[in-house]
């Protein structure tokens, strides 16, 4: 690609160079041919050197004066012609060079080159994110520089400029390009050995499927994380052998189902996404009649969850666009609306869900319902992240933000794979199991424990891998000891152990650790730091294991 720039420059310089050569040579030749008179009145002819010297400073408008002797009038006539001739040529040449520097094509080629170099130089694993928006921005914020780097493609120049202004650290290489073009994906490094995957979370399912298909052909080894918002789309992606299909509506549907039937399983999942590990009363989904305002993909997902949980529901199909057109207002609650609400049975419903595409409409629906039935449980779909404060102030019980769910799910898939597995596995268990786990975690690690993922290898657990390589048997329980006093227990819980393809949920503490095991550990900052010391420091480990006093 470097080559390309040189060719662009050379091709553009062809005309100015030709003009310069021709004007110079004609002027020089003229000066050589015209006889001059020297100081003592002898006729002389300028040599080529004299003429070249004179023309060089004349053309560039430096003008040292007439040399080697004062010119006679024949010479001056020629020079006055040559001045205009060469100076114009010279200015044209300079102008061409300056315009070349500002040239759009050249600038693009230079940018592209810089982008490719940046991508090429990435030494850590990276993801290619297609499309820059609030979802992908929040993903970039969380993964960039921690475990992975990020490369962004977006077809709008404004978006890329916005990204550059964000000043991400480490720098996020970004380029303007159509993500559905193979060439652009190649430039973004889809064939790079460190490329871990492609993230495509476009609103439009068609774009996503196009991208998934192209990426799948270009590089079979990478992860393709793609959004799908309909079951047909999910099926299509499954047929391409893509496992990482993110369907935000499916996630919402599952959350509603577990929220109603098994709140502790729901709690465990929400905790993985940053909720505190305690079931508050206002979090509990009530049982009874549900009233849903708004249909579409979101409504469909809610109904699916409710049906699975065996809950009675009534849907009021309301489209925000039609509503606004009809009433010229986004404030819900004129007499007609109120009477429909009452007709639908808002007074004996336990929950109302507002799932239209307009945030204000959603808020006003819930507001009205609350007026009519103060005890009703409220749930809303929030479409734009900017309105978050408004929703929080409105004291709505549950808010579903499709964008945030998508960003969280993608982040967990990339950076917290074990948490993702834990959620899947815990869904296979029952409420009773989940209640016990939550209680145990609360007892050992408190109400708001953190979770960590680690892999037993040389890098993360140097001391432990030394011991394991010697053939020592070390169990999970052996490591759960304080480094101050080995008779004391550390406040950590092993939630999940992954060995190859096998997954052990709540592994037995007498289980032997093997190299390459991946652990999901629940703890707080101090205790986890102790754990890290123990597995990586030889002396601490030997003390904890009892080899050293």
């Amino acid at each position, binding site marked *: 690609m470097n*080559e390309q720039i040189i*060719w662009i420059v*050379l*091709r*553009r*310089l*062809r005309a100015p*160079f*030709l003009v310069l*050569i*021709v004007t110079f*040579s004609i002027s*020089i*030749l003229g000066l*050589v041919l015209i006889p001059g008179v020297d100081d003592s009145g002898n006729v002389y002819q300028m*040599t*080529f*050197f004299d003429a070249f010297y004179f023309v060089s400073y004349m053309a560039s408008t430096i003008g040292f004066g007439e040399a080697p002797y004062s010119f006679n009038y024949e010479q001056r006539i020629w020079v006055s012609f040559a001045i205009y001739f060469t100076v114009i040529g010279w200015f044209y040449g300079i102008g061409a060079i300056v315009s070349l520097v500002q040239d759009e094509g050249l600038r693009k080629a230079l940018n592209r080159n810089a982008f490719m170099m940046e991508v090429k130089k990435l030494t850590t694993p990276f993801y290619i994110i297609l499309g820059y928006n609030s979802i992908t921005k929040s993903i970039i914020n969380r993964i960039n520089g921690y475990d992975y780097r990020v490369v962004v493609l977006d077809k709008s120049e404004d978006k890329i400029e916005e990204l550059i202004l964000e000043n991400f650290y480490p720098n996020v290489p970004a380029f303007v390009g159509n993500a559905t073009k193979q060439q652009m994906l190649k430039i973004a490094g889809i064939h790079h050995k460190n490329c871990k995957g492609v993230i495509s979370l476009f609103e439009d399912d068609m774009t996503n499927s196009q991208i998934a298909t192209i990426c799948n052909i270009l590089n079979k080894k990478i992860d393709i994380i793609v959004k799908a918002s309909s079951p047909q789309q999910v099926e299509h992606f499954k047929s391409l052998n893509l496992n990482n299909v993110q369907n935000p509506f499916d996630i919402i549907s599952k959350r509603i189902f577990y929220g109603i039937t098994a709140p502790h399983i729901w709690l465990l999942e929400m905790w993985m996404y940053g909720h505190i590990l305690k079931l508050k009363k206002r979090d509990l989904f009530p049982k009874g009649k549900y009233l849903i305002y708004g249909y579409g993909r979101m409504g469909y997902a809610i109904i699916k969850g409710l049906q699975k949980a065996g809950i009675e529901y009534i849907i009021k199909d309301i489209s925000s666009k039609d509503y606004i057109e009809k009433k010229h207002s986004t404030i819900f609650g004129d007499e007609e609306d109120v009477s429909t609400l009452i007709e639908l049975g808002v007074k004996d419903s336990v929950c109302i869900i507002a799932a239209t595409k307009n945030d204000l409409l959603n808020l006003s629906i819930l507001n009205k319902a609350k007026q009519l039935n103060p005890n009703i449980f409220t749930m809303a779909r929030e479409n734009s992240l900017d309105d978050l404060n408004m929703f929080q102030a409105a004291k709505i019980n549950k808010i579903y933000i499709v964008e945030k769910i998508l960003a969280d799910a993608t982040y967990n898939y990339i950076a917290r794979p074990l948490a993702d597995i834990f959620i899947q596995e815990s869904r296979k268990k029952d409420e009773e199991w989940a209640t016990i786990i939550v209680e145990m975690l609360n007892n050992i690690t408190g109400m708001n424990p953190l979770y960590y993922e680690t892999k037993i290898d040389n890098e993360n657990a140097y001391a432990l891998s030394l011991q394991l390589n010697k053939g020592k048997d070390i169990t999970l329980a052996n490591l759960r000891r304080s480094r101050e006093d080995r008779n004391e227990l550390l406040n950590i819980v092993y939630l999940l152990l992954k060995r190859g393809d096998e997954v052990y949920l709540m592994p037995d503490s007498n289980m032997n650790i093997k190299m390459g095991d991946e652990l999901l550990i629940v703890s707080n900052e101090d205790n986890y730091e102790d754990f890290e010391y123990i597995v990586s420091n030889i002396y601490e480990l030997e003390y904890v294991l009892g080899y050293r006093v």
Partner: protein
Amino acid sequence: MNMHKIVSGSFFILAMTVNFGFFYGDPTVLAEHSVYELFAAIVISLISTVMKLGDRTQLGAVLLATSIVADIQLIASATVWAFAEYVIKDYGVETVTVIVSLAGGALLANVISVILYIGDTLKSKR
């Protein structure tokens, strides 16, 4: 047929022929080598170099290289001449031979360039 091809082709060949015109003659006698011919050779050689700019093919690159060699040789020849005229103020046999043989080297580069050019023309089937 392509106007650019005709113009550039004629300049490639002209560069060689004018170069030969300067080179032809007793290499020890400066009077047999016209300064005007050297000037023309330099100008035409420069023009043919510019004509070759921007051709992305492999052949284009080689043509450009030979042309640049010819330019360097010819300009060196002219520089030696100017140096002899103004600085040494003497034309020994050695100086004259250097001027002419430098142009001879340029001729060789031009010949190579023309051979490549003809070869490429013959190779193309249209």
